[in-house]
């Protein structure tokens, strides 16, 4: 499988395991089809701004060529050298005309040659001629190069209608695909990270494998407090200021604080080495498994959906990234529980026992041997997790919580449809989009489960 570097020795077995799973997976028709649907959606998501954009992909105007749709993308700057603004000289009068890509009315310019994207609208363009919930079957209008209002045909129709401001629903759906996929993938990556870490710690070390001197155990209490103090109390304003500036720098500061926290804690625990004498030197077990398991239980007892709604509602700065973080932070328990159980199994396996007897370090055993084994089934949970993360996100934007108002998502389109029941296209299309995406992920998860479960194989 693709998840890690393989060394030659187990290439053979691993490969056949992967191939076997794939074979099983393919047998499950719905899951197999879903996989390709997912690939297709990934494609839409990745190229959303080239598929639906109100600026042409390519246009020539008064002897100059433009690649406006690429200007905001990194491709635009590096490949086409597009800067977002250009000036054109009128051939007769010699006047310079300034063309600002994103506000220029490309439809009104007399373009020599032009290639429009598949859907020549972007999710935020307000089409003044087709405002106020134009149905897909209604007559649509557009302005031609001469400025006359004509009936729009073909590409220039809003195939899925528009909303009150004249924003194209199909463009919104395409843009929403990107956001939904991002939400699913990013939040589950966060959950996966936490789940794997805690789950494997709990499962592999259990209650009786980590031995600490008493002094270190005692030092843990002031250590936690101190680490909290340095990482979060003193840096509290730094973090909140950074979040005020931008979500990105906020994340960076938060991550720094977490690192600092871990570092200080480790330093203090290692410092305990110098105090190991007499009573304090006595070795005791650190019940990692119990601690983490209880933690998971406590976490599971929390009303998670409520928690997510509340936190996203009280955060002043609405941001889709923060939403992903919150969803990710609240959905790691399933994975952790599963990884723990899997680890408990794995550590009794012969080859892990053998590795240990060969003197390999515990950490190395986890990362190199135990984890990869547990990895494949984890992806069942990841697939289901992505599905529910997408549901949560669209539910939140349906309630108009946490998602910025100028970002078009599936849920926010449904929210508009809710106040405007006659505009069925605002309900049906985004609803179907959510439904299909969630189904696809769920089917893949189910397919993976069937494929990986040896008992269900035939």
């Amino acid at each position, binding site marked *: 499988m693709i998840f890690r570097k393989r060394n030659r020795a187990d290439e053979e077995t691993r490969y056949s395991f992967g191939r076997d799973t794939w074979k099983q997976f393919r047998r499950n028709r719905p899951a197999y089809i879903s996989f390709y649907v997912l690939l297709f959606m990934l494609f839409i998501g990745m190229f959303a701004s080239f598929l639906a954009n109100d600026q042409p992909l390519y246009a020539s105007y008064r002897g100059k060529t433009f690649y406006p749709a690429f200007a905001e993308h990194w491709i635009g700057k590096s490949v086409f050298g597009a*800067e*977002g*603004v250009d000036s054109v000289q009128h051939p007769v009068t010699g006047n310079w005309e300034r063309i*600002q890509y*994103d*506000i220029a009315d490309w439809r009104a310019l007399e373009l020599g040659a032009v290639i429009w994207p598949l859907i020549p609208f972007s999710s*935020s363009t*307000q089409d003044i001629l087709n*405002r*106020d919930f134009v149905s897909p079957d209604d007559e649509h209008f557009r302005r031609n190069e001469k400025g006359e209002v004509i009936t729009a045909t073909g590409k220039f129709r809003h195939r899925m209608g528009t909303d*009150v*401001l004249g924003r194209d629903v199909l463009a919104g759906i395409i843009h929403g695909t990107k956001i939904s996929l991002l939400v699913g993938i990013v939040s589950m990556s966060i959950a996966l990270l936490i789940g794997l870490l805690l789950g494997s710690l709990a499962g592999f070390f259990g209650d009786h494998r980590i031995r600490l001197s008493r002094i270190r155990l005692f030092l843990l209490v002031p250590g936690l407090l101190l680490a909290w103090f340095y990482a979060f109390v003193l840096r509290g304003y730094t973090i909140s200021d950074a979040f005020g500036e931008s979500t990105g720098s906020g994340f960076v500061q938060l991550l720094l604080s977490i690192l600092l926290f871990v570092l200080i804690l480790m330093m203090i625990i290692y410092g305990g080495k110098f105090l190991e004498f007499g009573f304090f030197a006595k070795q005791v077990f650190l019940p990692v498994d119990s601690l983490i398991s209880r933690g998971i239980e406590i976490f599971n007892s929390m009303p998670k959906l409520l928690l997510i709604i509340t936190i996203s*509602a009280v955060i*002043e700065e*609405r941001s889709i990234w923060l939403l992903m973080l919150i969803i990710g932070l609240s959905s790691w328990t399933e994975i952790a529980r599963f990884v723990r159980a899997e680890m408990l199994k794995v550590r009794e396996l012969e080859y892990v026992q053998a590795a240990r007897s060969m003197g390999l370090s515990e950490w190395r055993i986890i990362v190199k041997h135990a984890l990869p084994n547990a990895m494949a089934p984890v992806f069942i949970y990841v697939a289901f997790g992505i599905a529910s993360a997408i549901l949560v996100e669209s539910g939140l934007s349906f309630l*108009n919580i946490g998602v*910025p*108002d*100028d970002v078009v998502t599936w849920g926010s389109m449904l929210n508009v449809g*809710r*106040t*405007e*029941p*006659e505009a069925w296209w605002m309900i049906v299309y985004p609803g179907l989009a959510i439904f299909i995406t969630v189904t696809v992920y769920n089917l893949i998860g189910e397919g993976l489960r069937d494929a990986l479960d040896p008992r269900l194989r035939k």
Partner: protein
Amino acid sequence: MDETGTRLTYTLRNDIKWDNGEPFTVEDVVFSVKLILSPLTHNPQAKSNFTNSIQSIETFPGDQYSFVLVSPAPLRGNKEVMSEVYFVQQSIWDPKDVLAELKFEDCYNEKFVPTDRLKKWFEEFNAPNRSKNPEYLTGLGPYKLIEWVDDSYILLEKKKNWWGDSDTSILLQNNPDKIIFKIIKDESATYFAIRNENIDAVNRLGMTKLIKLQKHEYFNASYQSAFIDQYAYNYLGMNMRPDGITHLPFFTDVRVRRAIAHLVPADDIIKVMYKGKAGRQVSFLSSLKQEYAHDIPLVEWNKEAAERLLDEAGWKDTDGDNIRDKVINGEKVPFRFRLNYMSDAAPSKEICLMIKENLYKAGLDVIPNPLEFSLFYEKAFTHDFDALMGAWMGSALYEDPSQLWHSSQWSNFGANFCGFGNAKSDSLIDACNREMNDSLYVVKIRELQKMVADEQPYVFLCSPQARVAIHRRFAAGIYSEKPQMFVNEFQLLSGGGGTAIKPDLTQ
């Protein structure tokens, strides 16, 4: 009223009775006013409406039905202040007359120390369990509260043998036997409810909903409905006096504010979001009022003029990213500001997006910033905003302009959010408030309106019309004043007598 304008003498009707048959007397008036003014009552917001106009109530010994309202200064608002007092029955709330210990002077004395008896009484009075209890909510009106179910409905029933039954004045009409205020918080649910004829009267219908309803034959057959002008307007306010650090001086220049006014597509907003059912105005008074300054021209949408003004003010796009910028304190600042608005005020989001689109085409970037109601106002009061979109609801009564425009209302974190005002405008406001002569008052208030329009702290977006629908089972009128109808006068035209009506209070 006497010549000084500070003493108003009132005489009460002597046939008004409380529910238990006791007469409504001066004692109840004094008790109610004291309750409002008392520093111990938990009503900080209600109190402030009265402190300007009420200093004390003087009674005549032996006369149970007349009293004198003493005001601190001769203000236009004095005449109307008593109409806003909610009367409370003293014999139910305070049978032992504990409140006699509280003097009117004490209410204005910051250092007042209440007696223990008073403290104890107020503790009970402020207890929340009484606020919706029918036993305590007695009144003088023709209806009494039967049941109040949270988030669901409020049930009122007609009193038997009400004192006003014999009267024929319109204000004392009480035709329906039972009134149910249904609380529906969702716009489309309200729509369906009225389509299903589940409610008889509604005063907060969505704009598009009523238009759609009026297109239906059966709706018009069973409901009378109307769009009606009301004393309310939406505005976009700009921070004229930002601190310069947390909020940059975008709108300190009147030219920038005027440019924004030129760029905001008010007519478009009215057309798209209000379907034409809104009027434009240029001042803070409703154009329904006769003192409205009709001679001030509307600010038209004009991109070229706006761009010129912005250029003049020094905002130019120097780096080709389409966003205008300017060097302030040695730093290049792009014109990118947050527009605050209330997240659950219906079309705010769309209006903001329309403004954003128009401003972006002129090189200004708007970041929509929806905020929850109380947070929105907290930020507005503390000047913690770049620009904001809000709405004011007025009334036919006298509106004191100092609340919105006096500069002390800015410096004391009051409702003058934007920082409008100088010594000249302040003195004009005071003059308006003290002017008892109507025609002179009109001249002065118009001058003030002109001043506000010139300074452009607000872009006056529009004044949306109220949407009212009343079932044709009832004969009833529709009014400009909130809540656009007078439930008591509803008269059942056909059908049995016991049918209830259900006005809807969509929140």
